[in-house]
């Protein structure tokens, strides 16, 4: 059997110009009175893709999901699913199903009847319904709970019922609104991987809304980072993290140190920037901004090295500072280092060796340094 990972690794329909998107959101705007929840948004989602809409609350991600489900109609623009426009099609005629954040289980029905509800609406023969329900409950490992009412289940079990119910009709697309938001951390992490496996197994297209970047990074093939009703960047988790296209994305996903400065020179794939703090930086950059242009270099904390001696390439890509704060997380330690000009840099180091006492202590004078391809030059 081919591992799911190997399937995932080779999966990149968005990079292939010949592949047709399964869901196409075209210039969709949604206004509630004066408030624009979704602003001229366009994006494509491909068959079997696990797509995440990521953003802070109020960024329009849930509204977009609700438009896909049919609970809201776009003010302008259109959504195309499998070649068919969804305009004017009510939720009960769309080949998509949704898993609600509150799970929205029917309180007066047993688990079994909750799962069977959608199938009954389709007029499926009774025997087939029973078979499908049993199959779905087996999939989410709830066979023993078929006759229970939702209030006799734990939060995790309810989440599974909601999942089984939304999958029972074999929808072309499953929409998930903060599917794991109500679970505690341990259960959430487990369920993330279960959802991924399930999606691969069933070969479905998943669109998940989440505000949890770790969740999005773990599960999704691609992430759309949203802000104020617009998509800021759509890319794979790795691209989003390592090559953010803007200061917003760099700052929103993970931790980052941003050095502002002016371009001194740019040649053969590298630019030189003099930061406002006076650090000369040489960084790989595909673009060639003009001399004197403002530039911002973003470097993730784990790509910053800490040493007691100045590195060989000093003073380029290096600066002296003192350890201001230490956060010990177990697997790694986060240092806040205050540079000469007062700027505080975040640097993290993996605790690969068991050491109860860290050699680096408070107030110690240290050198931070980074490689020429450790950071990304932001365009704005």
């Amino acid at each position, binding site marked *: 059997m081919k591992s799911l990972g190997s399937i995932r690794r080779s999966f990149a329909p968005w990079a292939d110009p010949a592949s047709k998107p399964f869901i196409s959101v075209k210039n969709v705007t949604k206004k509630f009175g004066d408030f624009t929840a979704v602003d001229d948004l366009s994006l494509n989602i491909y068959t079997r893709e696990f797509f995440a809409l990521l953003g802070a609350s109020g960024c329009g991600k849930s509204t977009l999901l609700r438009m896909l*489900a*049919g*609970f809201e109609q776009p003010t302008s623009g259109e959504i195309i699913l499998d070649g068919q426009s969804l305009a004017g099609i*009510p*939720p*009960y*005629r769309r080949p*998509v*199903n*949704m898993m*609600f*954040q*509150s*799970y*929205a*289980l*029917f*309180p*007066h029905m047993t688990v079994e009847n909750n799962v069977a*509800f*959608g199938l009954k*609406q*389709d007029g499926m023969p009774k025997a087939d319904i029973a078979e499908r329900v049993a199959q779905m409950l087996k999939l989410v490992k709830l066979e023993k709970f078929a006759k229970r*009412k*939702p*209030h006799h289940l*734990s*939060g995790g079990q*309810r989440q599974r019922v909601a999942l089984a*119910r*939304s999958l029972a*009709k074999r929808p072309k697309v499953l929409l998930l609104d903060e599917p794991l*938001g*109500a679970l505690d951390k341990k259960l959430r992490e487990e369920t993330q991987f279960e959802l991924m496996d399930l999606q691969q197994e069933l070969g479905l297209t998943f669109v998940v809304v989440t505000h949890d970047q770790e969740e999005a990074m773990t599960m999704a093939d691609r992430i759309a980072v949203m802000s104020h009703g617009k998509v800021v960047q759509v890319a794979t988790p790795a691209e989003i993290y390592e090559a953010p296209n803007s200061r917003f994305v760099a700052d929103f996903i993970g931790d980052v140190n941003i050095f502002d400065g002016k371009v001194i020179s740019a040649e053969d794939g590298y630019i030189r920037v003099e930061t406002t703090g006076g650090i000369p930086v040489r960084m790989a950059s595909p673009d060639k901004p003009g001399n004197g242009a403002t530039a911002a270099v973003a470097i993730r904390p784990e790509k910053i090295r800490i040493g007691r001696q100045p590195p060989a390439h000093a003073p380029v890509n290096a600066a002296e500072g003192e350890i201001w704060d230490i956060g010990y997380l177990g697997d790694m330690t986060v240092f806040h280092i205050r540079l000469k000009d007062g700027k505080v840099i975040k640097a993290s180091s993996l605790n690969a060796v068991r050491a109860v006492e860290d050699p680096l202590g408070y107030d110690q004078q240290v050198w931070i340094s980074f490689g020429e391809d450790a950071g990304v030059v932001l365009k704005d």
Partner: protein
Amino acid sequence: MEKWSRFNIASVVLGFGFLYLPIVLLVIFSFNESKLVTVWAGFSTKWYTQLWHNQGLLDAAWVTIRVALLSATCATVLGTLAALALVRYTRFRGRVLFSGMVYAPLVMPEVITGLSLLLLFVAIGFDRGFWTITLAHITFTMCFVAVVVQSRLLSFDQSIEEAALDLGATPVTTFFAITLPVIAPAVFSGWILAFTLSLDDLVISSFTTGPGATTLPMKIYSQVRLGVTPEINAICTILIGIVALGVIVASIVTKRREVQREKDERAAFAAIG
């Protein structure tokens, strides 16, 4: 358990005595052997048997029950719809005015409601009788239903309706398969409330009645003016029994389901955190 002080015992006895002494007296005297209402002459159920031969009273009772059944049912449908509209469509123009107008009859003096309905029926030339009483009762009981159902709907998680739509149920199916079963206890107690209100209404019925449509309270009232008979006591006792039974059943049903529902919802929301 706390110890009851004399003061508390006295207040409870006085309070309940004040409320129920007249009723208890009425019930006791309905079993009186004597024809004189105020003189006890031994236990008897003869007034109850005699009721069965009083065609006037039986007719009135039959009219009353028909009016109550029909008006309570219509009022429940209308009141539930009004409650749905008020809770669901929070953004329509004039919502405050509309909700105020639905509740106004709750505090409106019955004389005014009765008089205005009478004027309306006269103005449009509606023959007064069974149907005008029924219409009048629908008018004044639907707001009670609306209040009861609305309070239930406020704690109703609307995403379960969306889930039903999402799973392919039409709005009509969703209402009957999801919304109605969940709010059923409130709708039922609304119906019972409307039924009992209609059953013992005198003022509005008197205004809107016509020939051949005499309800029990009206009949009793007119007979009492000629003197209280043990027969009246007997029929009143039966009425009290019916109303008490209705109220008790309604409160038990609502209480039990409501407690269950609240438990469910609390658990559900606890899961959301």
